[in-house]
């Protein structure tokens, strides 16, 4: 699915486009930039000039409606990068284009206007104003825009309900739990109706249970709202769960960028591989990303034709399909036992093994029980109920074993 999305994106214009972005922290950014461009490493530059290389030659295209996850460990520059989108941090060099507009050319008041309407932001430690009530916090973006109090409260109230905090309107942020506070942060971000949502480690400060609850809520909201979300995290599981596209940052350099499956199955280097190693693949990968597409599809009316079709393939079983879709598996052994005289008979259900099909977009985790119940490879069905490929025990075992190398081989053959 993610692959398809990537394909679709090719035809769209990116909403956010970052080109050759550099950020150097220090007094003499421009001079040090030359050295960075000459290819000196972060450590070299720090030792020689005392400047810190924050970001180096970042190129990103973020498409409307996607959740774009930027992932990296602390110090990798991910929080620095997201602050360039709304120019909370000024780049040393490079271009930032949002919706076709070069953000770098905006004047102070244009920039303020841009921040008010184009983007909103959710912060790691919530960034709520302790002296304002929940409802006033949610309406803050509107207040800055100059919206009247009554309208502000009305709109804020809707978002308060959407994030499930009804009845908390007049509480102060410090009276709320961490999860509730971040819901307020999310509602504040949604309240301005901005197209782009920047989320800086938004769920990192929450405990695991609340975090996964919030992730669900975000996914649910995104299905309705279709915002463009830039999400920063250091947690790969979170990245895989939320991201349509994932970019991995290391020491200010973009190491790899792609769909979650690509990152998981084709890590670009040792760094990404080390990251990917601990991921629970059963929960991160969908069936269609690991299935074998070569199958024997038997679409015949009669047993005789089925035998002929089976002979042509190298498999000793076939998936029987008719106009109603997938019916079951027929094996070589069953066909061998059928008398030649019966070859003109139609295939009836008594000949079929009743093996359930699995959906292509299901997580591997969810198909494990069916896998254990059936020896034969399971057919993988697409949204229309057609058989697209199969998933065998050995494939699944290979993917779930923690060797990234085997994963790489597998996806190459797939």
């Amino acid at each position, binding site marked *: 699915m993610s692959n398809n999305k990537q394909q679709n994106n090719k035809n769209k214009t990116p909403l956010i486009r970052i080109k050759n972005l550099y950020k150097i922290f220090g007094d003499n950014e421009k001079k040090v930039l030359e050295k960075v461009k000459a290819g000196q490493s972060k450590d070299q530059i720090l030792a020689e000039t005392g400047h810190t290389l924050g970001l180096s030659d970042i190129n990103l295209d973020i498409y409307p409606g996607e959740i774009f996850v930027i992932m990296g460990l602390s110090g990798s520059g991910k929080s620095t990068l997201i602050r360039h989108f*709304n120019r*909370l941090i000024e780049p040393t060099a490079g271009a930032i284009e949002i919706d076709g507009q070069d953000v770098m050319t905006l004047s102070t*008041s244009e920039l*303020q*206007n*841009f*921040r*008010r*309407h184009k*983007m*909103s*932001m959710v*912060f*790691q*430690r*919530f*960034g*709520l*104003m*302790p*002296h304002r009530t929940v409802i006033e916090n949610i309406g*803050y*973006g509107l*207040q*800055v*825009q100059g919206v009247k109090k009554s309208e502000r409260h009305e709109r804020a109230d809707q978002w308060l309900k959407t994030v499930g905090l009804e009845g908390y309107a007049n*509480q*102060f*942020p*410090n*009276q709320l739990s961490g999860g509730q506070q971040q819901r307020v942060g999310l509602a*504040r971000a949604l309240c*301005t109706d901005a197209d782009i949502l*920047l989320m800086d480690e938004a769920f990192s400060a929450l405990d695991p249970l609340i975090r996964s609850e919030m992730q669900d809520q975000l996914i649910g909201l995104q299905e309705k709202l279709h915002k463009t979300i830039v999400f920063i995290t250091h947690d790969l599981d979170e990245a895989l769960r939320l991201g349509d596209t994932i970019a991995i940052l290391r020491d200010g350099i973009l190491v790899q960028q792609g769909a979650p499956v690509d990152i998981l199955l084709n890590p670009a280097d040792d760094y990404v591989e080390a990251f990917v190693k601990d991921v629970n693949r059963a929960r991160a990968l969908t069936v269609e990303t690991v299935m074998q597409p070569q199958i024997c599809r038997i679409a015949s009316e009669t047993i005789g034709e089925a035998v002929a079709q089976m002979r042509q393939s190298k498999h000793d079983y076939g998936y029987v399909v008719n106009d109603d879709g997938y019916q079951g598996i027929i094996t070589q052994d069953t066909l061998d036992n059928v008398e030649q005289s019966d070859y003109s008979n139609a295939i009836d259900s008594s000949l079929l093994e009743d093996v359930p099909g699995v959906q292509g977009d299901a997580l591997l985790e969810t198909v494990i029980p069916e896998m254990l119940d059936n020896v034969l490879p399971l057919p993988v069905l697409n949204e229309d109920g057609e058989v697209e490929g199969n998933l065998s025990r050995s494939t699944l075992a290979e993917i779930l074993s923690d060797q990234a190398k085997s994963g790489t081989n597998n996806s190459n053959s797939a």
Partner: protein
Amino acid sequence: MSEKSWLTEVPQLDRHQLLDIRKTLDGAYRSFSREYGDTIEAFFDPLLTFLIWFEKLLLSTPWWLVIAVLAAFAYLASRSWKLTLGVAGSFFLIGYFGMWDNTMRTMSIILVSTLLSVIIGLPIGIAMARSNRVQSFVTPVLDIMQTMPAFVYLIPVVMLLGIGKIPGVIAVIIYSVPPVIRLTNLGIRLVDKEVLEAATAYGANSMQRLFGVQLPLAMPNIMAGINQTIMMALAMVVIASMIGVKGLGQPVLKSITNQYFTLGLLNGLAIVALAIIFDRISQSYAKRTLQSFEGK
């Protein structure tokens, strides 16, 4: 220079040179005060009018009304009956021991000085918080204002404006304005970076950030600064009385010169009572603003 070795003696300007320096500076200042004294006095005239009006107002208001108003302030700031009754009781006792008029005079000058200190101090504190350069320039000036003996800066003030209320107020302000400046600066600098960043990210301009985020969040610290300013203003009452400011300081000064122990003690206690009352009221107000952040 003399022929003595600089190894055994501190190198020193000789007397004539020192005298010349003093003469030049004194002369220059004297002619400056002759030249501009009237203009500067005229500049302070509105302030003097206000001071006299405020003092008259306090003196002409019936004593029970003054006590009622003060008690109401105490209650509004603290929501504590104990403090409210304490305030009413202390003021009644002050009046009972015959110090009512002087206390009103002192209170008027303290309140006006504090008000002016806040009006002057807040913008300076804000400017300091915004710019490290301003901070590095203002901090040593504040250090001088707080450590320079009051008498030293009283001299030029008196030379320029004579004795009376205005030089008194100026002396009190010089001594008492540093805390409100320092704590405004500190309070704004301590505002959570992420909260301020959030305001910026939602497109707040610098005024919206200042009045919507920085000042409200710095308020507990600013209130602590105002509290200190009031305390220091009260500490200056006796010194101010030396340049003709009427109030509780004058009887104290009289007691020192004539060794009237009881008179000194009573007036001293009245100053202490004022200090404690103002301190408790402003502190409990600060505490309540802080508590509203914690949602209590």
